[in-house]
């Protein structure tokens, strides 16, 4: 089967990219005066060494995977959506507002649904700007990120600030809405399953439905899509809306599962990292899961390294950047396609 060989090649080249990037990171460590191999070992321990470490990695991987699935779906439709950050923030905002209004346990579904809808509307704005006015989605999604960030910033300093008024943050959402922690004593929450579910549904949608085929045709060849009678406007809208829904869901899950409230530094840039996740996953929704775990582990590992040896957490960002570069270098054509 051709697809077995093809996915095999994709996996090998992604793994190679990660190894290449880690080696580059090791060189950076060495130049900075640290022994690279022990340092990498500390990172691996911090990310995978215990039940807690593993849980931390998966908690970080959850929003990365949800945003990553969203970015992947947009990439497949030919839209370079780099606005997952803003879509996620808007989803989180919706979750916090709904989480103050709805207080019973079964409302979790509606809170998450609301987060997804607001995220998808935020992404649809960019789609509309593109189809109606020809604005590049690269520009518009990036700008919408800033708008979302400063909107959240203003809200948590002003109208939505907690009752105590001591910190720029909202009140906690109702406890009944908090996602269950199923691996106590770790903080690992059920949002992990939402992420896995989104990846599977995204895969099925993209590869097993007529609409998914249309989305991929549009992404691969807009002219062929047009010639085949595929409506480019509606397909673009749909793809970006679904993409934004995933990112919005990430915001909702992060609020209900981890932060339980909204504050300025709510996301350490999950939405931006998601672009790297999608690239490392070779734009495959199922590939997003291991790629997200990989990036989650990098984040957790770098934090552990900082605690243990005092290396700046910026190292994680450097390695992440190396991963993206290595994916493009090793991956060649497919990475170019986006």
């Amino acid at each position: 089967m051709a697809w077995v060989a093809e996915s095999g090649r994709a996996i090998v080249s992604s793994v190679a990219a990660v190894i290449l990037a880690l080696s580059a990171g090791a060189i950076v460590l060495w130049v900075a005066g640290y022994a690279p191999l022990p340092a990498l070992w500390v990172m691996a321990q911090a990310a995978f060494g215990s039940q807690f470490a593993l849980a931390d990695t998966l908690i970080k991987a959850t929003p990365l995977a949800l945003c990553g699935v969203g970015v992947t779906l947009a990439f497949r439709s030919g839209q370079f959506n780099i606005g997952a950050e803003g879509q996620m923030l808007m989803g989180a905002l919706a979750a916090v507002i709904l989480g103050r209004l709805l207080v019973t346990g079964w409302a979790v579904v509606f809170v998450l649904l609301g987060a997804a809808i607001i995220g998808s509307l935020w992404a649809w704005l960019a789609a509309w700007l593109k189809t109606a006015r020809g604005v590049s989605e690269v520009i518009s999604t990036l700008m919408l990120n800033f708008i979302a960030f400063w909107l959240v910033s203003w809200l948590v300093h002003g109208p939505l600030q907690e009752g105590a008024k001591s910190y720029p943050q909202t009140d906690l959402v109702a406890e009944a809405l908090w996602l269950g922690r199923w691996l106590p004593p770790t903080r690992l929450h059920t949002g992990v399953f939402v992420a896995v579910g989104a990846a599977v549904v995204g895969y099925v949608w993209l590869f097993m439905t007529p609409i998914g085929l249309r989305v991929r045709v549009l992404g691969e060849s807009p002219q062929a899509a047009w010639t085949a009678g595929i409506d480019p406007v509606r397909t673009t809208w749909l793809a970006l809306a679904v993409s934004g829904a995933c990112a919005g869901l990430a915001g909702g899950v992060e609020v209900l599962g981890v932060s339980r409230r909204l504050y300025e530094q709510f996301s350490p840039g999950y939405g931006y990292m998601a672009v790297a996740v999608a690239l490392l996953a070779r734009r495959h929704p199922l590939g997003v899961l291991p790629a997200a775990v990989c990036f989650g582990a990098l984040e957790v590992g770098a934090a552990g390294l900082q605690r243990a040896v005092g290396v700046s957490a910026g190292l994680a960002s450097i390695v992440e950047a190396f991963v993206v570069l290595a994916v493009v270098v090793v991956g060649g054509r497919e990475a170019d396609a986006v």
Partner: protein
Amino acid sequence: MSTWKLDDIAKRYGSVRALDGVSLTIEPGRIHGLLGENGAGKSTLVNILFGAIRPDRGHIICAGRQMRFTSSRDAIAAGVGLVHQHFHLVESFTVRENVWLGETRPDEARLWAAANRLALADQLNTVVGQLPVGIRQRVEILKALYRRATLLLLDEPTAALTPPEVEMLFALVRELRLSGVSIVFITHKLREALELCDTITVLRQGRVVATYAQAAATPDELAAAMVGSSLAPPSVTPPPGNQIRLRVNGLTTDADVGASIRGVSFEVRAGEIFGVAGVDGNGQTELAEALVGLRPAGGQVWLDGAPAPPGRRARMAAGLHYIPADRCRAGLVLNLSVAENAVLGDEVASAWRKWGWCLDGRAIRRHATALAAQFAIRMPAVSAAVMALSGGNQQKLLTARELARKPRVLVAVNPTWGVDIAAVAAIHQAFRTACSSGLSLVLISNELDEILSLCHRLVVIHAGRLSQPLPPNVPLTVIGRLMAGDAHTWEHYGVGS
């Protein structure tokens, strides 16, 4: 003036042997034809001679000296000039500016001398975008001559030309031969090779099959050498029925780049092959897109006496299907699989679905396998990307897909462009078979031979206008003049005269 020799040139791309030990000798002051189907290795060979591709093994020898080309710059310095099939000209620059692109020390006197040889001296200050295609090609030749080319490589030079322009090119090439320039004339058209070339080398699958002196070659022999076997004689298209299948009345549409369609009317009967001949860019794409519902258009289109619904999908549902000119970008999606491409445009059909919402992969693959078997499409697997197929097999897939939808009317634009002879024969035969069971085919093609051999009636398109319908035995000169837009001929054969 020197003899060029290629000695045992080989080039592989992955597992494909593009060239497999090619040796040939190009005599000075001769026109050397390089004949072969698409994929025979002609372009690779030319690019090696031009220094753009480095061979895996083998030598290029000029006047007994072995040449080492590391880039086209070296080849140009050695006197090689290449005229690409698609011109490399900056359209917003003048002819002179185009010649001087990349020159550090422009030499006006040399430019004048070269321009005079090509009768381009008056056009040196004209912006290239305003020149007709035939003249643009001459600007490419001017670039080569200005750089003192003594070996001129012409890659499929007649592809975009009208018959009169072809005649002018041939005359020019013969003149250049007299002045001692060696010419390599790359083509897949037998007739041209026989008419123009002193020597004809036939390439097939990266090897030299045979070399003929012009006098010794016959069309049948050349065709057999190109294909590797002799072809069955083409069957005759059965006569059409009487029922009017497609009626077009006063169709108008605006163009993005080509020519706007200005009120064209015609009728096509059931089982009829209706040809639209013309030089590219005269409104063919616009006409086709307006017919199939892609391009908003004024006027009316009737299918079997009923007005055709607007929109591409609605017209597809009404039985009006389309083979676009650009198979790689418009017809197929190269990165998607053969199976996925086989249902493209029809992906919502219930035949490809299970449980209401899910694509039935097995049914789709079975469909693609059946298409492949019916048209002898060679491919690694139905799950392989269409990119892995040769041009001929891609075109067969596209044709098979559209014919499998049992169209009432099929609009096909250049359906055999860049396809090998065997695939051309297969596609033509499929058209004839479909027409004998009632298909109306609107065949829009820049291959005049194709139109003349297939069509019951033909029209010529020029600047968005259609001529009267003509029988296929109309004198070639009339068609040529209509294609070139000769005002006098249009007075006779235009509509309403």
